[in-house]
């Protein structure tokens, strides 16, 4: 205990909070479906760090060390959610939901093209249909809002697969589903994201300002 006291003299968790709080929060907020869970994960991380501080030998940077703990807290939070039977029920519903995009295997209506801005080419700039930094920031927030609008099970699947880049096997272990179900869920999630993004970004009121009316590579549009 004396040892702990000596170490704790050098540790100021409030400094951690001011130095790394925003970064930890952003990391958690992207991976968890609401502000409250993100806040909880950050708090749990800093509390755990406080308890384990004598295990930190400074080989990694402080930020890396804290993010490492945070990742475990996020994984725990997700695992906990799917241990719950209700969540599993939600997974089953997400798998069974009908998107209404197709009838008899074909698109029920012609897919709308996304209006692209001048810097709209994917790849280089990263963001879609976006001109300038302000609009890029706005687009990222819109994308986050679209993610949050997904049923939680779909959001979680995308997070584990696209952000954490976990292997199929690991994701199935967390969610308690089969690889086939996982793929279906990913597909539904992306289709829904595509729909939400069309509605919230590309078809938004002021979409025509700053964006050319040209569509993607389709010359017939």
């Amino acid at each position: 205990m004396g040892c702990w006291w000596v170490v704790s003299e050098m540790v100021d968790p409030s400094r951690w909070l001011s130095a790394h709080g925003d970064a930890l929060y952003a990391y958690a907020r992207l991976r968890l479906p609401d502000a409250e869970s993100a806040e909880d994960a950050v708090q749990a991380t800093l509390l755990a760090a406080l308890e384990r501080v004598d295990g930190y030998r400074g080989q990694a940077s402080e930020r890396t060390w804290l993010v490492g703990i945070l990742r475990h807290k996020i994984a725990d939070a997700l695992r906990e959610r799917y241990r719950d039977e209700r969540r599993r029920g939600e997974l089953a519903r997400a798998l069974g939901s009908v998107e209404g995009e197709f009838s008899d295997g074909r698109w029920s209506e012609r897919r709308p093209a996304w209006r692209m801005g001048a810097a709209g080419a994917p790849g280089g700039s990263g963001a879609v249909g976006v001109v300038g930094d302000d609009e890029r920031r706005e687009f990222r927030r819109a994308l986050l809002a679209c993610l949050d609008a997904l049923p939680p099970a779909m959001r979680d699947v995308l997070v584990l697969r696209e952000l954490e880049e976990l292997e199929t096997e690991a994701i199935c272990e967390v969610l308690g589903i089969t690889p086939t179900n996982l793929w279906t869920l990913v597909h539904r999630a992306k289709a829904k994201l595509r729909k939400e993004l069309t509605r919230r970004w590309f078809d938004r009121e002021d979409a025509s300002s700053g964006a050319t009316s040209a569509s993607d590579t389709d010359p017939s549009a």
Partner: protein
Amino acid sequence: MKRLVRATWLVLTLRCEEADRLRSARSADELTPSERLAERVHSALCTSCRRARRQIEMIDEAMRDLRRAADEPGEVAPMPREARDRIDRTLRARRGDSSG
């Protein structure tokens, strides 16, 4: 020969809905060569599928961009002031318990 027949059959019979499902594969290695070929040929011929395919590619890219952006604090989701204060109080209280 048998494989060629099967691949051709898949190309000819692939419908938009199934093509769209194939598009969600993380990378080529989650698909058989026939599936990959069939999706490509189908999308080359179908306007809606071509758009859908491009939009999925953009979503993948946008997700990667979002992940990168989240490394810059405040860029995607700034921590609310009240949240910071709550956490700070909890940390101080815990620290007081342990060392005091």
